[in-house]
């Protein structure tokens, strides 16, 4: 496959162009390196949530997880609360991480139960459930902003290897894992089959229910992990910490070249999408444009890309 035909190629071109545009706009302050670091840091969070969302979206039309922000908040809040009561050593870190992942697993199972047992469309199921998760987070927060253990705070804000943020390394490692999962494993094949034609997949012996359950659980676990890391990075869990990640997770998936109709996932593209989105936003910021224009342009870009790239008049 020639390079410029790869689905993620144009996303990377766009990201690079955005980088140049923003760099030339930014007034001093460390120049390109600082911009790259910021892009990689914030992009990592988008990538992590985007990977999970991409997995769900790949399963076909109607599959979207709208509970990602609430799951992030819940996991971030509860895991930090747990760690706040411990000594701050290696066990604390492990406990926090495990608790976040377990919360993610629980959320994923709950989401899928609503979808499967109560036959609720995934969008409604995850949307309604997200309100419950949010309430749970609010209730357990009690207003105090608990700080993360210093070791985690340092790790998530640090750049110990080659000047690249640690978070980016983590996101990169996980991305590679997803790449292997989606492209080299039987599970990935089954997800893609279901996304292209769920009925044909079932007729070919694919265990549709089992695979669907797994994707929702993985997506929720990724959201929980992101919440955990974001809370440690920001010095505490805030109740609206996940707000922008709903649209962001969908956007980076679509911009990166995965098909919104399912069946086709693209891991490198997600990185390009994440970096592009961050750079666009910060470019708009550096133009001195307020939040209004930023929100508006973000929305317009998403819709334009979806309308052009993903729309289909007739299936050939």
């Amino acid at each position, binding site marked *: 496959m020639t390079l410029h035909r790869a689905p993620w190629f144009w996303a990377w071109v766009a990201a690079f162009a955005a980088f140049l545009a923003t760099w030339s706009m930014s007034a001093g302050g460390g120049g390109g390196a600082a911009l790259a670091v910021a892009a990689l840091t914030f992009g990592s969070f988008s990538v992590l949530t985007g990977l999970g969302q991409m997995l769900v979206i790949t399963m076909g039309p109607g599959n979207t997880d709208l509970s990602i922000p609430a799951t992030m908040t819940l996991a971030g809040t509860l895991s930090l609360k747990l760690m706040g009561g411990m000594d701050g050593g290696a066990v604390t870190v492990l406990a926090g991480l495990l608790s976040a992942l377990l919360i993610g697993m629980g959320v994923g199972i709950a989401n899928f139960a609503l979808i499967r047992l109560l036959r609720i469309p995934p969008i409604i199921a995850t949307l309604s459930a997200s309100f419950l998760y949010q309430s749970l987070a609010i209730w357990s927060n009690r207003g105090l902003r608990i700080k993360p253990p210093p070791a985690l705070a340092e790790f998530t804000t640090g750049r110990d290897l080659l000047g690249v943020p640690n978070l980016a390394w983590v996101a990169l490692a996980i991305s590679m894992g997803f790449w292997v999962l989606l492209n080299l494993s*039987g599970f990935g094949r089954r997800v893609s089959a279901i996304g292209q034609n769920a009925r044909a997949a079932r007729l070919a012996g694919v265990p549709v229910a*089992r695979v669907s359950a797994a994707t929702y659980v993985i997506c929720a676990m990724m959201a929980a992990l992101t919440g955990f890391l974001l809370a440690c990075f920001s010095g505490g869990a805030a109740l609206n910490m996940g707000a922008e990640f709903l649209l962001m997770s969908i956007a980076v998936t679509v911009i990166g070249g995965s098909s919104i109709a399912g069946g086709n996932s693209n891991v490198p593209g997600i990185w390009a999408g994440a970096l592009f989105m961050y750079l666009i936003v910060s470019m708009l910021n550096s133009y001195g444009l307020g939040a209004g224009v930023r929100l508006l342009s973000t929305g317009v870009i998403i819709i334009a890309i979806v309308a052009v790239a993903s729309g289909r008049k007739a*299936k050939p």
Partner: protein
Amino acid sequence: MVSGDTEAGARAAPVVMLEGASKSFGALKAMDHVDLHVSPGESLGLVGHNGAGKSTLVNLITGLFAPSAGRVSYPGASDHRMAGIRAISQEGTLCPNLTVLENLQVVQRDLNGWGWRRVAARRIRTALDAVFPGHRIRPDMLVADMSLAESQMVEIAIGFAEGPIPARLVVLDEPTSSLDAQVSAQLLAHIRRFCAAGGAAIFISHMLGEVFAVADRIVVMRDGRIIADRPTSGFSRQGLVDAMGHVADDRNQPGPTAQARNLGDTVLRTPEGIEARRGEIVGLAGLAGHGQAEALARFYLSQGSDWRSTARPSAVFVAGDRRRDGVMPVWSIRRNLTLAALETLTRHGLIDRAAETAIGTDWQKRIGIRTPDMGNPILSLSGGNQQKVLFARALATSAPVVVMDDPMRGVDIGTKTEVYDMIRHEAAQGRTFLWYSTEMDEILNCDRVFVFRDGAISAELEGPRITEENILAASFEFGDAA
């Protein structure tokens, strides 16, 4: 233009005329140089087996698509709608969330403004009373709450209802499939009245008694051509059945390989009564849409699971509607082929690429998939070759039972021959095939045949009794209309 008999009707200008009309779908020629005209007052019965071209003819007349060659014209009108052509199909053109009179509004453009409901109610009530006297359908009933029979009655009534453009030709495709005998009789009587008053009708049915009762002229189609077109009095029932088949050709010898194999014990038995022995090729025959595909799907789904996957499935499925049930359009040929055998190709969760390539290459040779590279996208293949891939997908598993949903429909003869050889070879090795086919030739080559009619098995044929006559006889209902 009111006429009391066919001759007088024929003098008036025809409602629709086909001149040399042909229709092809890709390589498939569904209709071949058909000349037909239907005049006011004529009641035309249209009969033929699967693939004869009946649906294509009807779709051309009702304007669903245009002919690939030749002409379809409506003397005195610009298109099918202005000509007063009404189509009543089995396809479900009602909106279940609307009431009966609201459904009328969807098709009739002049129902607008104040008091439209009264007008619509009157029209549909009149139509229902005219066609089905004694019915209990109210215009304000919701379609979703009605039985299948009632919604079919509504569709028929809408077809005959008074509207901005009067009905001049009504095309009915198996209209009595969901109606009981008494209601069917009412419909037939109405069609006769309608034609006596100057309307025209085309009537398709597998119930030959109905065709003889309602039609004054019968058209027999076969292989996309009209092979007989005469007044009803010129046909006998047996003669009609003979005309539909190839009795004149020498095709009713049982396949030579059918006797040569040793068949094993019974390996499956479905609730409908289908049975198969090990190594047997069992055919499901009968007119399309009489329950065969549903019986197959029920059996196959009962053998699998939504939650578990296995390396040793007990049954495997070959799709006929490859776009709906088979092909993964984004994938390569190789990936499509190995999908059902995925469980055997994974070691520790990862796919063994070498093994996968080996399977692809092996089956490419065995079944003859014409492509330079199995890594090419599957949509680069011709239809026939895509079908071969779906076959290979099933055969590449170890499943002892292969369920096939009319997979050779529309496939070229070269591909078919190759696949038939493959099937016979596999059967000789002990694989059992459950084969729903709408092609007489394929059915004639089975070891055992179950003929379906109206959702149930109407005949079970074995060995020398598998002949076209017997199958046609069992597919059509000879009984008199009530």
